[in-house]
């Protein structure tokens, strides 16, 4: 054993580091989706938004040399997509689920098309904060090399909590999402609130995408996303439409997702694919265990119906 070997401790460290990296895009996308769903609409198109954001972020970072400018433009691209979704769904008898699915295809296709020239060049990545500076063990340093966006994500979860529970606008959003009749009786601009909520959701999903291309894995390729945009929808349900829960769920999901690579890192290579399925199995298990008919989804937005 050499000095840097820390034996089995490497496993939890690798999981921790992986959890932070893997969960960051989930935090952004799931909280974005949560805001949208709280307005009574579901945006399934976030997978496409995510890819578009990843591509846009990478492109602008490469062209301007500033990764933060890349993040911003990823958000703006996502917001434009959210606006499109919001607008299309405001037309009578248009179904938000169907629009969402078509936006997945459109977003991914657009990202692939515009991103073709970006596969080769190297864009400046997002800086990370070396929280492991105090340690000389490389595994510790690697695990605690945390991207700034992660902290933004955590702050975001709490900010959204405050927004939904302690601001007038947040209550208005919840009213619109929970009962259109009530919102109309109070004279709230239902459509406008929904469009803005979908735009906010798109903005965050775009940022989540930029994390993929600018931090981890940190390059642009067509296989960049492994379905984070879709999983985020499930995470929101899993989190019972509460932002702090969504943060926890993203971390849990990230940690479980890091299990396979972490085990591989310390030399356990058997069952690699099985371990990779861990997040999904975990999610299912917790879902089943925590669902009860006696206490139904108290925070589920009432207007979130799959028909219409």
């Amino acid at each position: 054993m050499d000095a840097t070997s820390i034996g089995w401790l490497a496993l939890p460290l690798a999981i921790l580091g992986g959890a932070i990296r893997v969960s960051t895009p989930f935090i952004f996308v799931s909280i974005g989706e949560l805001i949208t769903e709280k307005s009574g609409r579901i945006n399934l198109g976030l997978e496409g938004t995510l890819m578009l954001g990843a591509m846009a972020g990478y492109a602008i970072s490469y062209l301007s040399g500033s990764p933060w400018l890349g993040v911003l433009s990823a958000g703006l691209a996502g917001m434009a997509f959210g606006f499109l979704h919001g607008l299309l769904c405001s037309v009578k008898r248009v179904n938000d689920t169907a629009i969402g699915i078509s936006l997945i295809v459109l977003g991914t296709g657009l990202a692939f098309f515009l991103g073709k020239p970006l596969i080769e060049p190297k864009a400046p990545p997002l800086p990370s904060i070396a929280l492991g500076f105090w340690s000389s063990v490389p595994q510790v340093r690697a695990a605690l090399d945390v991207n700034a966006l992660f902290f933004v994500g955590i702050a975001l979860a709490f900010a959204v909590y405050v927004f939904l529970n302690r601001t007038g606008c947040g209550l208005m959003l919840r009213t619109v999402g929970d009962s259109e009749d009530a919102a109309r009786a109070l004279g709230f601009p239902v459509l406008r609130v929904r469009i803005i909520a979908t735009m906010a959701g798109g903005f965050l999903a775009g940022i989540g995408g930029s994390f993929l291309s600018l931090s981890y894995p940190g390059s642009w390729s067509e296989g960049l996303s492994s379905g984070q945009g879709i999983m985020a929808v499930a995470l929101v349900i899993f989190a019972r439409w509460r932002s702090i829960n969504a943060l926890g769920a993203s971390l849990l999901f990230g940690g479980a997702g890091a299990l396979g690579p972490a085990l591989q890192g310390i030399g356990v290579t058997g069952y690699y694919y099985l371990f990779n399925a861990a997040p999904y199995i975990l999610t299912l298990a917790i879902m089943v265990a925590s669902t009860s008919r006696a206490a139904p989804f108290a925070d589920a937005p009432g207007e979130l119906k799959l028909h219409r």
Partner: protein
Amino acid sequence: MSVPQVELKNMTKRFGANLALNNVSLLIRSGTVHALLGENGAGKSTLVKCLVGFYHPDEGHIQVDGREHRLNSPRDADALGIGMVYQHFTLVPSMTVAQNLVVSGARLPAYINWQSELRRLAQVTRKLPFHVPLDVRVSQLSAGEKQKAEIVKQLYLGRKLLILDEPTSVLTPAEADEVLGHVRSLTRAGELSAILISHKFHEVRRFADDVTVLRRGASVRTGPVADLTDDALAEAMIGEPVSKMVQHAPKSPPKSDIILSVRDLCVNGDNGLPAVKDLSLEVRAAEVVGIAGVSGNGQLEFVEAMMGQRDRSGTMTVSGSPFNGTRREIARLGVYGLPQEPLKNACIDRMSLAENLALRNFDRVPLCRGIAMNYGALAEQAERLVAQFRVKAPGLNASMSALSGGNVQRAVLARELTQDVRLLVASNPTFGLDFVACEETYRRIVEARNRGTAVLLISEDLDELLGLVDRVLVMSAGRIVYEVSADGADKRVIGKYMAGMKAA
């Protein structure tokens, strides 16, 4: 503080080809209560919805203190101090009462400090003669509490003109007195004018100064309440002299088979606490058993648990077989019912009237052929039921949410009572019905009873119960605390059990 004089002039409103309002004018004198009467579907709700900017009239206008106003949205009405308690609840279910109050304020606060906000709200609501919990989610309130919360909301907003659309259908008579009495005293003190929509003549008589009767969208009678007799009002409503109502003297049933048997039923409420505790009861064939009680004492949970909508412990059998509310059991054992808030709990509001009427039997011949629906038979059934129960609707294909409140009720009754019913469980079956429809419903329940149906009737209206049932049970705090046969029933004693146990 001045209370404005509000006048509606020549209001006309069409929904497609359906003329809901036909040139209606209405004057609400400052500081008075103006009652609106009319059959189900007469246009009462439509008229007041125009007044709060929820609907836009095709013709006519609104004058406040002689000045003409256009109301494009409820926000405009809000600015004029006009507010309304809707017939169907419009509180946000997943938010607490306090959050609902804050979100309905004219100006949305940027940041809410809940501690000081709750203190402020408690101060405002303490002055009211009735109590509503502030930090409970609306979805966990009983219908009566929701109604009171709606009224609290309007009073909290400091309305000058308060519109109440059938506010008392879900309140007990005592609660109704409290609420309307308070509104009345506010108008007397010159702080408020009010419009009261009601189907109950005695309420109109006690609490209103003026009354206007609508019939088929037109104003047919208007004047001070004192100048009009009940018969005159009733005649104006239906357009012909009223025949004397039949009395349904309860008759003790012969010792017949037990249809419904419930043993040691325990049910938890939404908050996880026990709502129904060790409840046991039996209903025999050809017997009407009434459950009296103040709303929120476990009736809702009891009914939901019986129908299989809620987890429960204990046993329930119908005609000797266990009943868990599956579709097959419902059809085989003949268990039908009318829940509270039927638009929400017994209908699918975005489906059409005809489809809603077929919810019980769409999977049986003749409504289905193999796996395909027979739309001809579906329409035919709907036509028959609509005619038989006199449901007034814009059309068979109109969406359920376009029906007036009372007509939703009729439609559900039509669907449920025309099945092969052996056990009927009805919660407040006349909630929101006009007096003609009430009579019809009573008659139908008694007819069903006479055919051998066991009826369990849950109602907060003691007069209604005592006129209909063979036996009364009083439910309080989740238990049956008193039982008496209809002959020996004394309203005061029952009232004491209803209220007395509530305080404990």
